[in-house]
């Protein structure tokens, strides 16, 4: 048996696809709808979304991405001006 260095050790499992190819959006029952007129652009929904499903560039009204939103309702609960409604 020849000596094996770390370069010859077989590589362990490597996940090779981006998780964005898997759409978690079909888990949800309620979806958030943001009222652009009420929104004060504080960014609370963007900060507290566990699924990074609220897309925001810092200036405009944030937009939920329904492909990945799991419908937990944190954004609607934490919105200081109640601009987000959960719709079935």
């Amino acid at each position: 048996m020849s000596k094996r260095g770390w370069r010859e050790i077989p590589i362990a499992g490597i996940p090779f696809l981006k998780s964005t190819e898997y759409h978690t959006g079909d888990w949800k029952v309620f979806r958030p709808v943001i009222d652009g007129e009420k929104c004060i652009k504080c960014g609370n929904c963007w900060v507290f979304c566990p699924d990074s499903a609220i897309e925001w560039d810092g200036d405009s009204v944030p937009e939920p991405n329904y492909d990945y939103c799991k419908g937990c309702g944190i954004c609607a609960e934490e919105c200081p001006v109640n601009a987000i409604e959960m719709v079935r």
Partner: protein
Amino acid sequence: MAKGFVPNIKQLPKFMKEDPGILQGHRACAGCGCAIILRQIMMARRKPIVIANATGCMEVVTTIFPYTAWRTPWIHVAFENAAAVAAGIDAGRNKLQRAGRFSGDKDISVDYDVVALAGDGGTYDIGLQALSGALERWHNFMYVLYDNEAYMNTGIQRSGGTPFGAWTTTTPVGKKIKGKPLTKKPIVDIVVAHRIPYAATVSPAYWVDALKKFRKGFETEGPAFIHAYGVCPRGWRTDTKDTIKLSKLAVETCFFPLYEVINSEWYLTGPSLTIAKNPDRKKPVEEYLKLQGRFRHMMLPENKWMVEKFQELVDENWEIILKRAKNV
């Protein structure tokens, strides 16, 4: 006292859009508090980071083969050795930097921060000796404990982090015992006993405070330890929308006070400092308990003593921290 880094909300969304660190489409349960912590670590980055992630919820949900949600170098390690592998990554970085490898290469950076990420099972119970060893060897890394207070991904078994009275599948509510009869392990005390330069507690609800602490952890020369509070709607039997509300209530009832320990000196931060100065702002712990299904048995009239005992334990812990704190 978290000073220095002040996150700019106008620049953070652009930063996270260009380099998200963690992608959408990971399979954490709806309303997962630990996934919010992951995003906040990513928001506080100053350099590229390398993550050693122990087995646990965040490892399972982010890398279901063949998908991965990570956009940073990431290694899955066993339950017990997240800190040991992070120590190895740190040693490797030092060697590469000293040897000047890849110094002319634009695509490869050997200047990065090391993060060890583990849940409460991987820290309180199984990974404690590896953590202690890495702290003693003074490796330059940040250890993030996301504490959801039980072994959630295997089906809600009790851990050292489970609080008094909580229902889990291994501490059921019956005639002999009513939930966990013992208390939560004081992990920050254990870690601070190593006299490390930085340790802190973090609640994702107070996110500016959290980002400052994560950034301080990255900037610390030597080991840093962050105890983050991750609400688990599935295991705690709470409503998914209450995640942030519970993270706030845990701090407001002083069940999970926010503080940081710099070179063995204790400082309260943020809302906990406000409560220390105005004690009437402290909420009764019942408000926190009644939202959670795992404490449902405590709300029955015959188990009123459990709520009182819980309150006693919280007060005791809070008094200890008040005595230690330098800035009260």
